[in-house]
């Protein structure tokens, strides 16, 4: 069963059809790359998958759950790295991660491992408000990983990361299948992303133009 199943999905932002009939399937352990020009609808598509915005018409299922009926119950199985960090300015990196961790009803030693993996170890005690752009990007990533999601949605995770950060990202995405994670990645860093993707589709003007390019 595909994790994400969209059939001619239309999604409105205000009155603007940011998605104008999207057909897309994401199979388990795919690493799907969404590419396409600015304003094409990539961000909208990812937010829709995460259940943050409602679809308008069509058929949309994530983990088999119909998004028209229930946008919540699939959420604990996925995580989204958006343009912003979703963190609290007055809490430290560690506190933010701990909150996400506990709120997701997890237990264990996930946090320190994630800090390690995203290269945030030295910043655990720094408040979110004081982070630089690239440090925030790392935190956004860590904040998603800490939930150990089956489906990882990444919206331009490269933007603002330095070389070390990109290496971390590379490692995270490339080891995703072996960790049982499916990845959907929207990015303009095509060279870097194509190395990682098992499939690539092009989003354009709110629809999907399938390039049917298969890696591996």
């Amino acid at each position, binding site marked *: 069963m595909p994790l994400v199943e969209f059939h001619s999905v239309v999604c409105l932002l205000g009155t603007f059809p940011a998605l104008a009939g999207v057909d897309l399937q994401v199979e388990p352990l795919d690493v799907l790359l969404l590419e396409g020009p600015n304003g094409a609808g990539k961000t909208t598509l990812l937010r829709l998958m995460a259940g*943050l915005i409602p679809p308008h018409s069509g058929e949309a299922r994530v983990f088999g759950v119909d998004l028209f009926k229930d946008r919540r119950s699939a959420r604990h199985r996925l995580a989204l790295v958006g343009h912003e960090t979703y963190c609290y300015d007055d809490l430290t990196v560690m506190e933010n991660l701990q909150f996400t961790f506990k709120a997701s009803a997890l237990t264990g030693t996930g946090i320190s491992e994630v800090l390690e993996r995203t290269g945030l170890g030295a910043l655990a005690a720094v408040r979110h408000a004081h982070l630089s752009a690239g440090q925030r990007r790392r935190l956004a990533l860590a904040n998603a990983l800490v939930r150990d999601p089956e489906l990882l949605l990444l919206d331009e995770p490269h933007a603002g990361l330095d070389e070390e950060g990109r290496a971390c990202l590379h490692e995270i995405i490339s080891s995703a299948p072996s960790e049982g994670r499916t990845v959907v990645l929207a990015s303009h860093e095509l060279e870097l992303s194509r190395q990682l993707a098992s499939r690539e589709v092009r989003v354009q003007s709110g629809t999907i133009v399938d390039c049917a390019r298969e890696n591996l």
Partner: protein
Amino acid sequence: MRLWREASLVAGKDLRIEARSRIALGQILPFGIIVVILFAFALDPDSGLLTRVAPGLFWVTVLLAALLAVGRAFAVEEKSNARDGLRLTGLDGSAVFLGKMAAIAAELLFLEILLGTAVVILYGVEVNGLLVLLAAAPAATLGIASTGTLYGVLAAGLRSRETLLPLLLLPVLAPVLLGATRAFEGGLEGAPSDAWPWVGLLWIFATFYTAFGVLAFGTLWEND
């Protein structure tokens, strides 16, 4: 069980942020005291009027402070889109409601104690029926906090939250204002029999809105 755990997680987070930024203690409280002073001044006090209207002014002030506190509680969620993050964690809407409400209520209660002391001193109020006051204040606070949280999320995410919130909130809270004022008047005059029905009304209101919030918050929280 799970609901309580999650609610206390949210409340804990909000109170920790508050403890760190010191908004309620450092700024909302002085704001309240200044409003109390301004009112008294604007009302030209020589006529013993103040003692009479003290309960009303106290509750109007608490209401204004509550607007700030609620605004702040949701401003915190707006920065860096933390609200979306909270939704993504899959926390139950009811838990978020209870948690935020508890944090706001705790801040308000704290505020009321200090503000009440200030009013007693400044307006020269004599307190007779303390029991009534102690029964009325938490009820009114819960009523304010629950409706505040409910409307806070209604207004949240809208661009104009700061200004929309008072507009939505104040009319709904008019009964609370009235009830709390009457209960306090009764309590201060030492005529508790007048006051108890109002206290009952306040508790009904608080229970109703809390229950309503627990049920409705999820829906509001999910909408965009």
